[in-house]
C-alpha cells in the first residue's frame, strides 16, 4: 500500500526509503491516502489559529505528496503542538501528530535537513513572536526523550538548541516595558492561559497583576506536568522573563480567601479568570477515603515539588486521560513495581492522546479496558485490593461517546496497595460571585468569540472554561482573552 508522503513522482529511491521508515513507525502514514482534504483538521487546530500563515496541516500533507523535498524545509513541519484535536475530529480519525514526529526523525536521518540547529532557531524566532514561553512550548511539543540511552539523533540536536537558548535567556537583560495605559488589570491563575494573557497585555502597555494561590507560578505546567516532560528550570526562567517585562505575580494569594473577588472588581478595570481545573473528581465509591487512595494531581504535585512521595509496589490508576498516563508513569519512576490502568470504556474512546498511551504501554504499564472499580478494600486503613466490574458499551450519550453499562455478576478483585484516581478534574469556582454564570460541570459560561463571562469586564479562559485540555488550547485562550480585554477597554465596555 503506497503512502501519501513523497508519493509523487513514484519510484524515487530516496522517498521510498522515507516511506519504509515511516510505515515502521506509525500506521497512520498509510491511512493518510484516504484524506480527501475536507479541512476539518486545519479548522480544529489551535496552532493554525495562532500561526495561520506558517501552518496548515491539510495543505502540508497534500504538498508532502506532491513535492516532499520542498515541504520538509517549511516551518510547518515543526509547529504541531501534539494536542490531537485534529485526530478527534477527522472523519478518518487520522493521527497527524505521530506522523509529524516520525517525519521529523526520518527527514533528519535521511539527510533532508542538513542544518537542524538553524532550522530550530528559525522556529524559535517564530514562536517568540506569538508565545510568552517558547522554550516550555518547544520542550512539550518537540518532545526530546529524557532517557539518555533512547535519545535519537534529532533529540540530541533539539536538546542542544534548547539548552543553548535557555542559557541565552538567563543572560539576557530584560527591561520592563513602558506602561502606556493607566488601567490596571488582574489575572487570577498563573497557568499557561494566565501567563499568555499577562504577556500579551503587558506588551500592549497595560499594568498587569497575576494572583496565584500556590507558592510557585505556572499552574498545570508547574504541578501537573511531570519533570521528565518539562524540566522545571525552563519554566522558572521563562516565567522570570515575563516578570521582568513588568508583570507583577503575587503567589500564595488565594482569591476568595486572602482577597475577595469584589475587591478586585473595584481595583482592577478588567479581570481574567484562568484558575484551570485542579479539583480532582471523586469516584463516589466505598473505601475512597482510605489512606492509600490518592488523587493523581496530588501525586504529581508532590513529585514536582521534589517531595518524593512513596507509592506502594502494586499501583492501580483509575481513569483514561493524559493525567492518568502522567500519574501512572510518575508512579513507575517513583519505584512502583507494577502499575495497572483501569478505564471504563474502550481504547478508541480514551481521552488521553494516543502517543501518551503508547509511551505508557512502552514503559510496561498494563491498561485494562471496560473496567470500573466498585469498592476499594482496605485493612487497617491501608488499601489491599479493589473490587472491579466489567462494562459493556451502550448507545452514545450526550458527549457522543458510547455509555458504559456494568455487566452484573462480572465483579472480581485485584490486589494492589495504592489506588490513584485520575477521573478528571473540575474547576474550583467557589470564589466567584453568583453573577458569573456556570455550567453543571462548574466550568464558566463565556461567549465563544470574546471569552467574556456573564459579568461585563470579567473574562475567563483555559481549563476553567473548557475543562481539562492541552497547553496549546490554554495559550490560544489567553491570546483571545487579551485581545478581547483590549477591545473591551478601548470601546469602554464591549
Amino acid at each position, binding site marked *: 500500500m503506497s503512502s501519501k508522503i513523497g508519493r509523487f513522482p513514484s519510484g524515487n529511491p530516496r522517498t521510498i526509503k522515507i516511506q519504509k521508515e515511516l510505515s515502521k513507525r506509525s500506521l497512520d502514514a498509510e*491511512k493518510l491516502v*484516504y484524506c*480527501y*482534504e*475536507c*479541512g*476539518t*483538521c*486545519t*479548522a*480544529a*487546530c489551535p496552532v*493554525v*489559529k495562532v500561526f*495561520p500563515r506558517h501552518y*496548515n496541516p*491539510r*495543505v502540508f500533507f497534500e504538498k508532502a505528496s506532491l513535492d516532499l523535498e520542498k515541504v520538509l524545509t517549511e516551518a510547518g513541519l515543526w509547529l504541531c503542538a501534539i494536542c490531537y*484535536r485534529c485526530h*478527534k*475530529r*477527522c*472523519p*478518518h*480519525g487520522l493521527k497527524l501528530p505521530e506522523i509529524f514526529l516520525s517525519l521529523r526523525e526520518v527527514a533528519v536521518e535521511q539527510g533532508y535537513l542538513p542544518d537542524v540547529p538553524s532550522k530550530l532557531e528559525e522556529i524559535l524566532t517564530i514562536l517568540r513572536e506569538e508565545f510568552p514561553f517558547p522554550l516550555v512550548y518547544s520542550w512539550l511539543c518537540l518532545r526530546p526523550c529524557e532517557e539518555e540511552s533512547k535519545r535519537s539523533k534529532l533529540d540530541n540536536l533539539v536538546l542542544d538548541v534548547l539548552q543553548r537558548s535557555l542559557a541565552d535567556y538567563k543572560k539576557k537583560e530584560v527591561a520592563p516595558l513602558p506602561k502606556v495605559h493607566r488601567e490596571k488589570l488582574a489575572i487570577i491563575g498563573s497557568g499557561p492561559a494566565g501567563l499568555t494573557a499577562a504577556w500579551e497585555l503587558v506588551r500592549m502597555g497595560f499594568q498587569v497583576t497575576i494572583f496565584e494561590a500556590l507558592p510557585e507560578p505556572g499552574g498545570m505546567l508547574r504541578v501537573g506536568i511531570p519533570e521528565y516532560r518539562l524540566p522545571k528550570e525552563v519554566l522558572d526562567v521563562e516565567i522570570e522573563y515575563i516578570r521582568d517585562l513588568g508583570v507583577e505575580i503575587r503567589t500564595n494569594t488565594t482569591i476568595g480567601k486572602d482577597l475577595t473577588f469584589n475587591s478586585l472588581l473595584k481595583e482592577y478595570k478588567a479581570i481574567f479568570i484562568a484558575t484551570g481545573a485542579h479539583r480532582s473528581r471523586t469516584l463516589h465509591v466505598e473505601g475512597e477515603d482510605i489512606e492509600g487512595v490518592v488523587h493523581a494531581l496530588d501525586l504529581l504535585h508532590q513529585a514536582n515539588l521534589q517531595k518524593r512521595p512513596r507509592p506502594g509496589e502494586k499501583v492501580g490508576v483509575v481513569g483514561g486521560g493524559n493525567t492518568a498516563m502522567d500519574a501512572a508513569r510518575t508512579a513507575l519512576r517513583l519505584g512502583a513495581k507494577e502499575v495497572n490502568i483501569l478505564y471504563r470504556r474502550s481504547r478508541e474512546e480514551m481521552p488521553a492522546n494516543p502517543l501518551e498511551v503508547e509511551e505508557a504501554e512502552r514503559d510496561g504499564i498494563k491498561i485494562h479496558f471496560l473496567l470500573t472499580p466498585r469498592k476499594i478494600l482496605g485493612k487497617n486503613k491501608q488499601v489491599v485490593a479493589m473490587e472491579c466490574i466489567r462494562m459493556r458499551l451502550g*448507545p*452514545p450519550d*450526550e*458527549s*457522543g*461517546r458510547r455509555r458504559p453499562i456494568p455487566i452484573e455478576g462480572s465483579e472480581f478483585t485485584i490486589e494492589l496497595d495504592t489506588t490513584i484516581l485520575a477521573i478528571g478534574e473540575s474547576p474550583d469556582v467557589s470564589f466567584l460571585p453568583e453573577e458569573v*454564570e456556570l455550567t453543571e460541570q462548574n466550568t464558566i*459560561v*463565556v*461567549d*465563544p*468569540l470574546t471569552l467574556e463571562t*456573564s459579568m461585563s469586564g470579567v473574562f475567563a479562559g483555559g481549563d476553567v472554561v473548557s475543562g481539562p485540555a492541552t497547553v496549546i488550547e490554554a495559550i490560544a485562550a489567553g491570546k483571545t482573552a487579551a485581545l478581547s480585554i483590549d477591545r473591551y477597554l478601548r470601546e469602554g465596555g464591549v
Partner: protein
Amino acid sequence: MILLTEDSSVLVIGGGVAGIQASLDLADRGFRVYLVEETPSIGGRMAQLDKTFPTLDCSICILAPKMIECFRHPNITLLTYSEVKDVSGSVGKFAVKIIRKPRFVDETKCTGCGTCTQKCPVVEPSEFDVLLGDRKAIYMPFPQAVPRIATIDKDNCLYFTRAVCKICQKLCQADAVDFEQKPQEITLNVSAIIVATGFDLLNPSVINEYGYQRYKNVITSLEFERLANASGPTGGHVTRLSDGRIPDKVAFIQCVGSRGLGRGVSYCSSACCMYATKEAILIKEHEPDSEVFIFYIDLRASGKGFQDFIDRAKENWGIQYIRGRPGEILEDPRTKDLIIFCEHTVSREVRELRVDMVVLCPAFVPKESNKKLSENLKIRLDEYGFFKNEDSMLAPVDTNVPGVFICGCCQGPKDIPESVAEASGAAARAVEVIALTARKEAQ
C-alpha cells in the same frame, strides 16, 4: 403463448414510495398484492418530506394520489401496523406469517373523523414529526395518512397504563374503539416477496463537536422538513427551537457521519447534496433576504436536471456554497446562536461564521429491523447492514434467495427517482421469475 399467472400473489414489505410503486405495478397487471407496513400508515420517509428536488413539487401532493390508489386498488390488501413474523417455502410457494399488531380500533368501522384524537387527554411526542410535534395516545400520524384509521399507543394510553379514561370509546360515534383487540396472526401464501423497508438517519450526536442535542438550534435535515411542512409542528414556519424566532442565517453541513473511516459510516449517502440545496431554497422562499450557507466536500448532483438546480440555487436564490467540513461548532450561551469554525479549503483561511440555525445532513443507515428480516427471509446483509443484491450491476434487485427481491433504500442510499425505477424493476423481476417458475413446473 402468454403465460401470465394471474392467480399468483406477491408480498411487499414496506409501505414507502418504493413499496407503493412495486405494489401498484403488480396490482395494475392483475396480481394480488399484500402490502405490509409496520407503522399505522403507508407513505414512509417521503411522506415526511415537505418538498422534493429538483422540481420543488410538494412531496405529499405527488405521493398522496399514489397512496390513495393503493388504498382503493381492488388487487391490493393493505396490512398496516403489521410485521412479518416468519417466512418458509420457496419461490412460487412462500408461506408468510404476519402479525397484525392490535390498533385497538376496528378498521372496518373507523371513518377517520378524528374526534377521538381531539379529546384524548394524553399528549406524546409524535414519531412522524421526529418528536418535534406531538400527538395524542389515540392518533393518526399525519393528515393524509392512508388508511385513515386511528391507532391507540398502548404504552401511553391511560386505560392501559392506569385503567381509567376511555374518553375515545365514549365519543366515537362509529363505536370503533375496542380495547380488547388482540394481536392477530395470519398466514399468506405468496409466489414472490419484495422488500422495500427503507432506511433510517444516523443520530448525528456521534459527531459530538457539532453539538446535536447539546445545542438547541442544531437540527437534522428531517427535522427541518417537518418544520418547513404546512402540516408540521410549526405550520410550515421554520423556527429556531431555542426561541421560536425565524432564523435569517442558516448553515447546512454535509456528510455528517458519512464518508468517514472513523466515526459514522464510510459510504456517501448520495441524496444529501441535493436535498440540502432544496431545503436552502425553501428558506430563501419563505425569507428572501435570509442568508443560507452549505458546507460541502464534493457537490454530488449528477441526476437529471440536478446540476441546473444547483446552478439556479447559486444564481437565482443566492445560496452560498463553501467547500470545507467544519471543525467545531460552539454556541453563544446568551443568544443560542451558533459559531461555526471551518477552513474554506479553496482560500485556505479558517473563518468563524455566526448563524442562527445549523442543519446537519446525517448519513443514511440501515433500519434496525433489517437484521431480523434478513434472518426470516434468509437473505444476506452487506457489511454496512443494508440488504445485499446478487450483483450490483447485472441483478440489482435480486437476492441470494430466488423469488425474494429488494428495492429502494433498504439496499443502499439513493434518491426517490432511483427508488421508484428500482421498485418497478423489482415488480418486473417478480413477474418474470414467477412466470419462469410456473413454466418450469408446467413442463
